[in-house]
Structures are given as C-alpha cells and as structure tokens.
C-alpha cells in the first residue's frame, strides 16, 4: 500500500494540515499553475505514488483528482476546487478570500505550501484522526436522540416563523408576514455577503494599492515612473504596445492570476492621470490596454465550470489565447476612437 502525505501550511499560510493518499480512482495530482510545475507536485507524487497532470493543458475527471495544486492570489481558483470537494494546496499564502471564500476551510485547503511543508504522514496522526471520527459519530447520535423527542407544535430548534412556514393551511396574514420576512431576510443576507466581500476582498486590496501609491508618490520614484509611464500610457501608440505585450499568448497566462498585474498597472496610470501627466480621455483605451490578458490564466477552470469535455479544453486553451491576441490591440484602438469627446 502506498503512503499518505501530510501537508501543513507555511508561515503566514492558512488551513491544513491535510493528510491525503491515493484512494481508489483518485490517483492524480492536478496542478493549475499557468504551466510550470511546482516542486511540491513531484514530492507529493513521490510519496503517494500518484501521477501528476497539468490542469492547464488538459482536464481530469473530477472524481480522479486526489489533490489540486494551484497558485491563486485570492480571487477565483482558490475557492473553486474546495467548492467541488477536492483537497486544494495553494503555493501562495492566500487565506479565505475571493467570491467562493465560504468553501475555503481548514479541512480541505492549505496555503503557502513549499517542499518543506510536505512530509510522509506518520502513523500517530492516522490514529488521532480515527479517534476524532469516532467522537464525531457519537456526538451525531446524541443529536438524533434529541430530535426524536421533539414532536410538539413548536420545537425548540425552530423559530416560530419556520414552524409556521411548514404548516399547510396558511392564513392570509401569515402569508403576508412570511413574504415580508423573506424579502427583509434576503436584503439582510445580501448585506452580510456584501460586507464580507468588502472586508475580505476589496479593502485588503485597497490597503495594498494605497501603500503602493504612498511609496511611489512620497519617495520620488513617482517622478521616475512618470518619465516611463507618460510616454507609454500618454498616447494611443504606447497604449497599443502595452495591449500587444499583455496579449502575447505565451505571456498572457502568466500575467493573468488575480488580475493583480492589471490592477497595479491601472493604479499607476490612474496616478499619472490624477497628476495631469496623461490626458483623462485616454483612461478609456488604457482600461482595455492593461487588460488584454483578461482571464487567460483561467481558461481551463472556466471551461470546467461550463462542464466542457477534455477535448474541448485542449482545443479551447490555445484557441482563447489566440483570440485574445488577435483582438487585443483592436480593442484598444476602438476604445481610443470611442474616447473622443470624453471629458472635453
């Protein structure tokens, strides 16, 4: 029998420890890291005897994936595999973040993993886990017992609203009450989600960008940047060059992850617009120029969400990279044409 591997989080990482081994059909380590193969993939394969698959080039049926290895900076991929119930190892130090952050939990996700964090799982840990599952099972049983005792009109684990909602003959008044309650609850839940997104996704990025702006403007590097950026981003030809470089098919998947590079470029250009070094109407073509690599790293995952066949993913990745390249520069040009009359 092959051994199991134990993966702990690196310093500043999140989640884990995960203990994984080959289990029936699940014998593939899939890495979706923009093409290169992280060293931990080899180590995991060596210990467990699993085979490795580059998820960027081909796809693997979900039920054959033992573990997914990703390099996500905190936007999408880090949540997608946990959502599907696939143990996920992130080589970046990303914690619970991104739109799917609720699926990122300690028992299925571990981040900032390098070779040192991967080791052979000892037998002691196996025993520990077993005892934990026994405990869980026994606590579930006691819960069941409690539930069977409650068969009265109102039960202690349900609110009056919930009990009413289950009754068959609702009076008009109850219906109105339930309807209003549902709408208000929807608003409240939407607000909770929105605040969560702001706190965990938008504000951290703002902090990072604000610090970047502070350092650029306060240190005098800003003048240096202005000298480089203004001739490049200050006219349509320079913007088209930026768009061209970002859309190169061998470069675009590397520039994609998390949109971080696009967002930093955008901020740099924004600073120059604010200072008056770049005319404001060029903001529109600039938006297109810094983002011609848009989602290029995400193609196999996105096609996976569309339940595409393996064949489609193998065709789709180069196809979308080519089409991004073909329409990258024209997008910038059209946006420039559309920017006439803006802020005049």
């Amino acid at each position: 029998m092959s051994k199991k591997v134990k993966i702990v989080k690196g310093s500043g990482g999140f989640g884990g420890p995960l203990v994984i081994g080959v289990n029936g059909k699940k014998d593939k380590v899939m890495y979706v890291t923009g093409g290169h193969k992280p060293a931990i993939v080899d180590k995991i394969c060596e210990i467990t005897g699993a085979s490795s698959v580059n998820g960027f080039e081909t796809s693997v049926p979900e039920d054959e994936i033992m573990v997914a290895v990703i390099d996500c900076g905190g936007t999408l991929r880090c949540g997608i595999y946990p959502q599907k119930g696939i143990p996920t190892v992130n080589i970046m130090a990303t914690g619970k973040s991104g739109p799917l952050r609720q699926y990122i939990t300690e028992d299925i996700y571990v981040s900032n993993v390098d070779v040192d964090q991967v080791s052979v799982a000892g037998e002691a840990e196996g025993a520990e886990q077993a005892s934990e599952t026994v405990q869980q099972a026994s606590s579930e049983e006691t819960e069941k017992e409690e539930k069977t005792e409650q068969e009265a009109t109102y039960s202690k684990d349900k609110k009056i609203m919930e009990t009413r909602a289950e009754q068959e003959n609702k009076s008009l008044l109850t219906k109105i009450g339930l309807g209003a309650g549902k709408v208000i609850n929807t608003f409240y839940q939407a607000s909770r989600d929105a605040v969560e997104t702001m706190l965990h996704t938008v504000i951290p990025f703002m902090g990072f960008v604000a610090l970047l702006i502070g350092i650029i403007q306060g240190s005098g590097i800003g003048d240096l940047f202005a000298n480089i950026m203004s001739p490049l981003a200050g006219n349509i030809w320079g913007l088209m060059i930026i768009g061209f470089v970002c859309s190169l098919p061998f470069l675009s998947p590397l520039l994609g992850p998390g949109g971080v590079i696009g967002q930093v470029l955008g901020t740099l250009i924004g600073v120059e617009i604010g200072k008056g070094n770049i005319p404001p109407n060029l903001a529109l073509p600039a938006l297109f120029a810094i983002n011609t690599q848009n989602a290029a790293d995400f193609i196999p995952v996105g096609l996976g969400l569309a339940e595409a066949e393996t064949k489609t993913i193998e065709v789709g990745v180069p196809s979308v990279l080519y089409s991004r390249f073909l329409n990258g520069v024209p997008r910038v040009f059209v946006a420039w044409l559309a920017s006439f009359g803006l802020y005049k």
Partner: protein
Amino acid sequence: MDFIVKLAEGFINLFQTGADTFIGWMGSIVPLVLMLLIAMNTLIQLIGENRINKIAQKSAGNPLLRYMVLPFLGSFMLANPMLHSLGRFLPEKYKPSYFAAAGQFAHTSNGIFPHINPAELFIFLGIASGIQQLGLPMTDLAIRYLLVGLVMNFIGGWITDFTTSYVEKQQKVKLSKKVHIEG
C-alpha cells in the same frame, strides 16, 4: 541630528501619503460600492438563478445572443466566476468562445456594476481614481467602458469561433456543434 529627523519625517511621509489615499477611498468609494453590492445581491436573489438558465438554453443558436446578450446578462446575474457555468447550455464547439466573451464582460460591466467582480475592481478603479482626482465624473468613463465592451467582447467571442476551428484542424479533432446536457 537634523538629518536624522528629516530622514524619519521622509520615512513617515511615505506611509502618510498612502494613509491619506486609503482613508479617501474609505470615505468615498467604499460606501458607494457597498450600497451597490447590497442592492445587486438582493435583486439577484429575488430574481433567481433559474430564469437566467432558461435564457441560456435558448441562446445557443445565434452568435449575437450567445456572445453578447447571454454573457452580459450572465455577468450581471451570476457574477464572476459563476457566469462561466452558463456555458454548459452551449454546444462544445462554442464553449471556448463563450468563455472568451464572458471573461471580458466580467470587467467591462464592472465599472457600473461592481458586484460582478469586486475582487478585480481596481482594474477599473485604479484608472478611475485618477479621473476622480481631477474632479471629473467617473460614470462617463464607466458607461463608455460598458458600451465599448458590449461591442468588442461580442467580436472577441465571435473571433474565437474561428480560432477554435483553426486549433481543431491543428489538433485534428472535431468538436460537436450539438447541445448535450446531462440530467
């Protein structure tokens, strides 16, 4: 001594500039985006996912519906990344093209509807904050971003139909043009 004080002041100044920028955003952009997010999240919940799925099923035949209407509505209703899941209603051949268009709609509509892709909002906001600093309205930029996107993202999806055919020939495979949905 003076030199050390100057140095320390310069050092703190780096962070003070950043702090001023940050609190400026916290007072202006954050509340606005938050209110938008709440309103949009509620709207989406009330409309429900089923309706957009129905639209997706009917959009397979026509490129204009497939690469313009569907990804635009999909990005609004399902947001990033779940809008890509609508591709499952399309034939295999068109899935890469839908992805190409949808990925771009997740940005071009983001200026007016930040709930679509809050994690990558700074693509728009980074540039737009310069506009704001000049005292000009951001909305003008956001609307033109959306409109140019509407046209160019459609063309992007449509071009991908051709690149897909090209790669098909290269790899000597043929992708099905028939819709195939399990379950």
